């Protein structure tokens, strides 16, 4: 059994009467791209929120590299090496792109305000290394040359990439991506797939991915879990999932190409 980066044991999160995440068990191996899919409202984002410390699950355990993390605050969890992006982008809009990355490095840096005022040696060293690392990350996510733009002035697709860059900046062990290609066109989606692969292959980061773009998910994932009404209804390799009836019924439907054909033919009929 490969080493697990995240293990959830019977995690449940309840809002009022609604069990958004219901006793979910996941074993996520190190170095995998692991996708979580499921209908809208299935509890995917909520699960992310539990892992990254925004919510404390009512039941169950979340282990990160074998260590219990639920109940810790988000900053501590970030410090342990879990980074994330958000379904609705949350950049620091009035900071420049490169500053966003520098903020992302926060947990990796050690100098404090006194160092900053006196410019101690370690401050100078850290400052120059962190800056050059930040530039590398910009390059890595394809934003080279845009580092001095305010984040809010970047177009949507670049903001998504910048958010990933910020998440990468502290050298995470685990990256949680919540619908990273939402609102992107197919061309940009392809770029994003390339980027995600690169993260795993070049940096060795484990990735958990939420996506509704099936082509992408099937393409990229090592392993997929499917949530519905908060419970895990299936898990396995992309092939297995694609052919799972329950998943098709609850989630997949006929698929993009078939759908397009449906509308086209209807339209032709109408015109005829």
């Amino acid at each position, binding site marked *: 059994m490969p080493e697990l980066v995240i293990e959830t044991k019977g995690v449940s999160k309840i809002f009022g009467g609604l069990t958004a995440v219901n006793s979910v068990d996941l074993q996520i191996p190190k170095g995998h791209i692991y996708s979580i899919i499921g209908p809208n409202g299935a509890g995917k*984002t909520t699960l992310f*929120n539990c892992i990254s410390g925004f919510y404390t699950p009512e039941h169950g355990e979340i282990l990160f590299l074998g260590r219990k993390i639920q109940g810790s605050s988000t900053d501590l969890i970030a*410090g*342990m*090496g879990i980074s994330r992006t*958000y379904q609705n982008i*949350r950049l620091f809009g009035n900071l420049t792109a490169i500053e966003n990355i520098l903020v992302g490095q926060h947990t990796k840096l*050690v100098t*404090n*305000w006194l160092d900053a005022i006196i410019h101690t040696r370690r401050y100078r060293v850290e400052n120059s290394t962190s800056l050059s690392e930040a530039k590398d990350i910009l390059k890595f996510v394809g934003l080279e040359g845009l580092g001095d733009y305010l984040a809010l002035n970047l177009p949507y697709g670049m903001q998504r990439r910048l958010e990933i860059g910020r998440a990468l900046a502290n050298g995470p062990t685990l990256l949680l991506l919540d619908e990273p290609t939402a609102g992107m066109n197919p061309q940009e989606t392809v770029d994003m797939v390339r980027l995600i692969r690169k993260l795993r292959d070049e940096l060795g980061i484990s990735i958990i991915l939420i996506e509704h773009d099936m082509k992408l998910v099937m393409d990229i994932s090592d392993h997929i879990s499917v949530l519905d009404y908060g419970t895990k209804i299936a898990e396995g390799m992309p092939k297995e999932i694609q052919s799972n009836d329950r998943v098709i019924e609850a989630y997949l439907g006929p698929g993009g190409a078939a759908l397009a054909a449906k509308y086209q033919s209807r339209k032709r009929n109408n015109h005829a």
Partner: protein
Amino acid sequence: MIATKKENFLLKLRGSGTIIRYILGILAGGYLLWRLYRVFIVQSAFGLETWTRLLIAGLVIGSVYALIAIGYTLVYGVLFMINFAHGEVMMLGSFAGFFVLEATRAMEVNGPGGVATSFSNAYPGLAILLAFVAGMSFSALVGFYLEKIAYRPLRKAPRLIPLISAIGASFALQNAALLLFSPQTRTYQNPDILTRGQGWRLMINDSAVILPYTGVFTMVLSIILMVGLILLVKRTRLGKSMRAVAMDKDTAALMGIDVNKTISNTFIISGILAGSAGVMWGLHNGLLHYFVGFLPGIKAFTAAVLGGIGNIPGAMLGGMVLGLLEALGPAALDISFQLKDVIAFVIMIVILIFKPSGLLGEVLSEEKV
């Protein structure tokens, strides 16, 4: 690879905030109980008549604060800005009411029985009504133009910008009143039936406790106004559109809501309430000059926050609590009256420490990310 880092000691104070909060809370609560025990059980410093008097005073002050606080809360609820000039809006309304009463006082008419009296004594109800109409409409007008001139162009600006504009407006209005009406202190000329200091007499412990007409009038009227306001906001489309505009102006416009009109109406309503508070305050206390808006303005703002800013019942509750604290606090805790604002502010801080969004403010539980 779990990072362990050396952080500055200050940054390690994680969680100690909560501990200190509770220590503070326990200390404050303990002190409070001890004081109350001393005042009521051991010393029993004041008789029931005194407590009644304090209670009456607190309720009257509180209802005026509540009316002004609603204005802050309404504007805040829609624009997320502190209308710092709101106290001045009240002051100007008070002046309008004052001039009407002066005029009706000066006007000679043949009263009932053919005796020549002043208009305000012959038709006191009408005179007071006119004063309120004048005060309310003038304040509404001021509020309306204030928004149009000083705030509307800044609607897209960061939140602190309109705050400074409001501070400027507060200066400008205050000094305009100073220059127009002189710094002289004026006295409200009430019609005789509402003479200040007169009231129903209750005998408690052999001493007369006066329930002043003006005070009762103030309380009753402000309750009526508040109920009316709640109905207005709950029952009419205006209330709905105010909520929508508060959350997202563009989307509200896409629903067919006239955003400008909604905001103007908000200022008009808060002006009306402030104007009525100004006239009531004048009738009850008599005192009027260019600076009367400032202190109640600050207090009412405090009350609005205490109740949970943006929340109308919260503003009312906050106003009442603050009024009662000011009146009863020093006596109940046996602390000098000079420190009544200290008591009020300390209690407010303690409340906010435990209820960070005010008494009735929304509980910001787990935020959706």
